[in-house]
């Protein structure tokens, strides 16, 4: 589904990604873990086209999208749920969701928006309750659901989630991850960037570890969960073992 080879990207003179490669197979949940500033968000933003790739290729379903504009990439079936959610604060939940379907609404005016909305509302009943409320007035967890719902409205083949747990209470995080797991059940392919490494690895099939813009480790979730370096740096294993 997604294949990245030797990707370099950054902001201005600053190079954040240095030769990153990874692949995601259809129907998989793949997670990327790494510390703050290691470049994991930049990676997703580069795939989504918000950050320009300086070198390397990003193949989405056999086509190189590294030079495409974000809107083309969305149309090609790859949606990003950005860090910090970035919902449209001044617009209602319904408007937020319908803008998610923008590329398809433009292409085909007859798209049955209501039916699409029903699908999302079925998935996140909370959003139905808040249908005509402004996005900015939602709680953090609801905003995250809205952001995911908005991305799903584009009917993507690949959903990228950037730190969905950020700033959410543990119980909500749990719900969100539950939803993500369900998404995969519904046949979606998911690329997940998460700071909460343990939670992420628990629902993922495979994982990558990124450090200062380079992939340092790759493996199945099981392997990574048991890897000493990973435990020390990202799972707090070291002191947990002291504690236990």
């Amino acid at each position, binding site marked *: 589904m997604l294949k990245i080879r030797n990707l370099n990207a950054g902001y201005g*003179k*600053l190079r954040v990604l240095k030769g990153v490669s990874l692949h995601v197979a259809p129907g998989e949940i793949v997670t990327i873990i790494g*510390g*703050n*500033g*290691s*470049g994991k968000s930049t990676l997703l933003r580069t795939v989504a086209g918000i950050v320009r790739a300086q070198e390397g290729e990003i193949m989405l379903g056999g086509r190189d999208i590294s030079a495409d504009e974000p809107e083309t990439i969305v149309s090609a079936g790859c949606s990003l749920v950005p860090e910090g959610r970035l919902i449209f604060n001044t617009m209602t939940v319904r408007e937020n969701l319908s803008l998610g379907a923008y590329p398809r609404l433009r292409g085909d005016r007859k798209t049955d928006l209501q039916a699409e909305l029903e699908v999302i509302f079925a998935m996140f009943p909370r959003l139905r309750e808040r249908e005509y409320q402004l996005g900015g007035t939602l709680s*953090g967890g609801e905003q995250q659901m809205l952001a995911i719902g908005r991305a799903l409205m584009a009917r993507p083949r690949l959903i990228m989630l950037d*730190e969905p*747990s*950020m*700033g*959410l*209470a*543990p119980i909500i*995080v*749990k719900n969100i991850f539950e939803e993500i797991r369900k998404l995969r059940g519904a046949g979606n392919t998911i690329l997940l960037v998460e*700071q*909460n490494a*343990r*939670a992420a690895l628990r629902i993922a099939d495979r994982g990558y570890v990124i*450090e*200062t813009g380079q992939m340092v480790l790759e493996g199945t979730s099981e392997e990574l969960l048991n890897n000493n370096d990973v435990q*020390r*740096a990202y*799972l*707090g294993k*070291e*002191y*947990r073992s*002291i*504690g*236990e």
Partner: protein
Amino acid sequence: MNFLEVKGLSRSFGGLRAVQEVSFSVEKNAIKAIIGPNGAGKTTLFNLISGALPPASGQVFISGSPIHGLPPHRIARRGISRTFQNIKLFSRMSVLENVMIGRHIRSRAGFLAAMLRLPRTKAEEREIRETSMDILSLLGIGDLADQEATSLPFGKQRVVEFARALATEPDLILLDEPAAGLNIHETAHISEMIMKIRRRGITVLVIEHDMSLVMNISDEIVVLSSGKKIAEGAPAAIQKNGEVIRVYLGEGDA
């Protein structure tokens, strides 16, 4: 009397209560770490202490005298310096010049003296330059002095920010995620530097995610979650704290 005393600090944005009734204290020359998940209010807490944001309620004392509500530049003069999570170096200025800004509160040339370049100003300028160079050398980046600060690699920028904060000769330094985005070697370097700073008699308050770093260097740890302090204590005690493990480390499968 504790060196830094934070009492019941609160602040909210819109409906979000970013920091709620947080109190703690730091002893002179100690290293205290603040940990917590993203969005727990750690950076807001720093902004409240350094004056970048005025607190809605609560008090902050340094050596017993209140500093809450003061503008940041006045707080800086009280001997508190800081670094930023998303590095805020001054663009279009060299590394050396960035560090020289740190000497601002330790020098006094005004507009007129500077424009006329009076002998007194020249001498002061020399002092600023030399001290700043010394700090750069101390942190091992003396050779970068003339480079443009914002064009440096990430890791080096962190060190420059460090140097800038040190140049103010602070009594208390606030470090906001000093190891973020750094690799293992750079992180080790940072941890060394923090120890070096402490040896100079400076008190350190640090926000950090890297557990190995936190556990290695800190004397005490404060844990924040959703704006509230949920635990405080020595590293060993924190590691055993069930609440901390549940909130911070994942979904309580311990």
